[in-house]
């Protein structure tokens, strides 16, 4: 397949996702797996976090608040949380955030890959290359 064809394929895929109804687009199981892989070291599989170190996501106002606030927090990182901007593809992150927003004590709206993409694009390019000491 040529690069051009791959590009067209992606466009078609993006179009399919765009047309899909928001309410059923995200995969809770994939979200659970992605959460275990990327987030559980700190927030714990229970979503309860660790007192004094990592906040609970279960019942968190941010995890149930406006989508864009939560998305930019996870993309950019803050304090003891890393930036996941370059580390997790949009669809996976959408699954994870949707899982967090709808699990444990949380009952909030889904997050779509398009929302993530548009916030990503608005973020400034920062060289996040880590450097060992």
């Amino acid at each position, binding site marked *: 397949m040529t690069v051009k064809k791959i590009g067209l394929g992606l466009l078609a895929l993006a179009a399919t996702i765009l047309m899909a109804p928001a309410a059923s687009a995200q995969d809770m199981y994939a979200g659970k797996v992605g959460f*275990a*892989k*990327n*987030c*559980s*070291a*700190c927030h*714990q599989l229970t979503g309860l976090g*660790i007192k*004094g*170190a*990592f906040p609970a996501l279960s019942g968190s106002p941010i995890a149930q608040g406006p989508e864009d606030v939560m998305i930019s927090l996870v993309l950019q*990182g*803050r*304090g*003891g949380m*890393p*930036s*996941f901007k*370059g*580390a*997790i593809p949009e669809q996976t992150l959408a699954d994870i955030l949707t899982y967090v927003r709808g699990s444990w004590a949380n009952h909030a709206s889904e997050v779509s890959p398009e929302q993530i993409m548009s916030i990503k694009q608005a973020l400034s390019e*920062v*060289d*996040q*290359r*880590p*450097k*060992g*000491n």
Partner: protein
Amino acid sequence: MGNFMFDGFGMGPTRRHFLEQIGRVAGTSMVMAGLNAFGISTASATDAPPALTGSGKGKRIIILGAGHAGQTSAYELSKLGYECVVLEARGFAGGRCQTARKGTKVQELGGEAQTCKFDEGQHLNFGPWRIPFHHRSTLHYTREFGVPLEVMVNDNDAAYLYHENVPGALANKPVRKLELLADMHGHTNEIVAKAAAGGRLDDQLGADDRALLLEYLVSEGYLSKSDLSYRGTEGRGFKVNPGAGLSPGAGIESEPYAFSDILKSQLWRALQSVGPYDQQRTMFQPVGGMDQIAMAFQKRVGRMTRYFAEVEKVRQSENGVEAFYVDTKTGQRASVKGDYCICAIPLSVVRGLDINFSRPFADAIGQVSYALVGKIGLQMKRRFWELDDHIYGGHIMTNFSDINQISLPSYGWQKEKGVLLGAYVFQATAAQLSGQTLAERLDTALAAGEKVFPGRYRASFDSGFSWFWHRAQYNLGGWAEWSPEGRKTAYPKLLEPDGRIYLAGEHLSHLTGWQAGAFESAWQQIEKLHHRASA
């Protein structure tokens, strides 16, 4: 250092270099003048602790945390007669300066209990592990305390580079760095040399300089003098090594890799003309483990230290400071009063303590973030890297997204067993690896190493140890990472005391993530404190 390559670099080696130059020709007073001309206080001279005179008799300093910044403060201030009380939450001193060896017990927040099962004599520096030659503060204390050093091979031309899933012939195989260096320089020099010889660089070079440049390119890149081509060189290694007699005799020379294959492999990403400022090819490490430095301090300040004393709250008034702590062994609470306080606890932890800082100061503390970082150490039954691959120390740099690199030990050469660093990862990668159970982490590291040393890595594995600093109680992160805005707004605020409390630690330096940052930050803060207390 910070997440930006240049973070700790900002003050610039050129300034330092300039000061060294004038020091050499004109002596110390000129250096002082030069420092002032640069707009930095003479207190930041980094060779030795501040030369303080006078006495601190009758004054008590409460020092929070017995990492290097706390240890340094206690050691230097007690010399002046101050009464120092050090409150340390852990059962030992040294903070991040820790070494895992047989019997070391650790547990990450929310993680499994781990007891290190390395053999006697084996160890892993899971925090700091290397000392650059220009970290004069660190080297000041190793000299003063007589901590023996050995060389840490921080870059080894014989070590492998390995990139998987890249285009070209160099994919998925170990390539020695010296082959790559020779070929990359050779091929590049050939192109530049031919362009220069053909007159294509004449608008940038005079005739004299062109001749000299050609000489340089030929000698540096091992080009043929006659046609300026690169056809390999013995330094990249032989196909059959030379030896005695007729066989192997002169040996058989090796062939260079194709330029295009090297370029496509991106293995050249591991090459730099010189290392960054803080990464030289040879560095130092204390014999027996980095924690020898912490222990040497503790011989001198141990009597002032209260262990298992977790500070929960600090109250300061116009007249003094009171620190409240809980004894984590007995659960009992107590407090200690003093004239001043040096808070040498990482800001990631300070954020969560109840300390009556002024509002702007507390806000500034909230502006720094901390690096996610962790290591996995693997004890191997057999030093296959020395025996089979002839690699003594240094790093195997890979493009594996899960482990980054494998570092070979610079201690115990030619002994039977050895502990290598099987993963050294940061940020999101560290978040992911640290989300695995201990057994999963070891398996991830072994699977990665097996690609580079097939048939030997997993088979030689004995026991492992893993530690992630963002999951470490009393640290909550590897080292401070300042954003450029934070450096401008918050950092200067935190360098000044808030009332009677002075902060100290690697986070208040441009040497973040280095022990030198902790030492030199403490030096600056105790000098300020002493001037004020003696006024």
